[in-house]
């Protein structure tokens, strides 16, 4: 990797292409996990790589290069999420039949979601996450879906651990409120 980076710094196009190919799986995984609505994943991945090349001179080697690129990818996604307008109020009617069933099941029983409903649960989780503020959404995604630790999230986002905890707390409170509202709407 170090040799490749030196060649990229020396404006070697082949090395630059190889670096993009090597890091693409990492970048696209982050981009897909945090993809804002109406933004093409390839455009966002391209933006991440452009930032990587522009800031390559700032990379000191203090952290492994893929970590450094991951941080660029995460902060780029956060910037796009912040630029988005908030979604309108979440309604029971926005859910598909399957999603509504899954939501009803998790709120009324202690059983795990059946394997064949995993996709509906996945969609439902993302619809609920879309109701959160971008920074809070990022923290909950990293904590609950990617199962990162607070320290790892701090490293990825550049936020200190207290801030990550505050955002997680705020997000969970909002999620509880959403569940409560959905329950009340369902009853009415």
């Amino acid at each position, binding site marked *: 990797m170090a040799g490749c980076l030196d060649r990229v710094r020396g*404006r070697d*196009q082949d090395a*630059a*292409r*190889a670096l*993009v*190919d090597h890091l*693409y*799986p990492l970048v*696209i*995984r982050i981009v*897909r996990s945090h993809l804002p609505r109406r933004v093409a994943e*390839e455009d966002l*991945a*391209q933006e991440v*790589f*452009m930032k990587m*090349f*522009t800031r390559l001179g700032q990379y000191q080697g203090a952290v492994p290069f893929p970590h450094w690129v991951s941080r660029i990818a995460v902060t780029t996604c956060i910037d796009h999420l912040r630029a988005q307008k908030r979604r309108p109020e979440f309604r029971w009617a926005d859910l598909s039949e399957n999603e509504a069933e*899954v*939501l009803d099941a*998790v*709120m009324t029983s*202690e059983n*795990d*979601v059946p*394997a064949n*409903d*995993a*996709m509906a*649960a*996945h969609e*439902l*989780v*993302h619809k*609920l996450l879309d109701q959160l503020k971008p920074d809070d959404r990022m923290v909950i995604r990293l904590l*609950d*879906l990617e*199962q990162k630790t607070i320290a790892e999230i701090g490293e990825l986002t550049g936020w200190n651990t207290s801030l990550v905890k505050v955002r997680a707390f705020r997000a*969970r409170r909002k*999620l*509880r409120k959403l*569940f*409560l509202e959905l329950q009340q709407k369902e009853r009415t």
Partner: protein
Amino acid sequence: MKPDNLHDRAWARLTDAARRVPPASDAAAPHGFATRVAALARAGERAGHSLFERFALRAVGVASLLAVASVLANFSALSTWPVEDEQIAAGEDLVKVLLTESE
């Protein structure tokens, strides 16, 4: 059980299920993506350098020359300014003071 706990547990069950969905497998870069990005990065680098070389250094040079020239040209006026200030403060007519000085 508290409602908050119920909702937290509901959320935990949902995220457990959501994690079971396998990630999209086509992780390789699309054909031509790496070439395009590398070329764009190179083009951006060139544009940045040429703009800096063309404008920034010249602008700094010209600005420095203008600053030195303006100080030299106005040195006499600047050095006599406190006297004029005193005259104005004393209630003298500014136009009269200037005309007298120019004579």
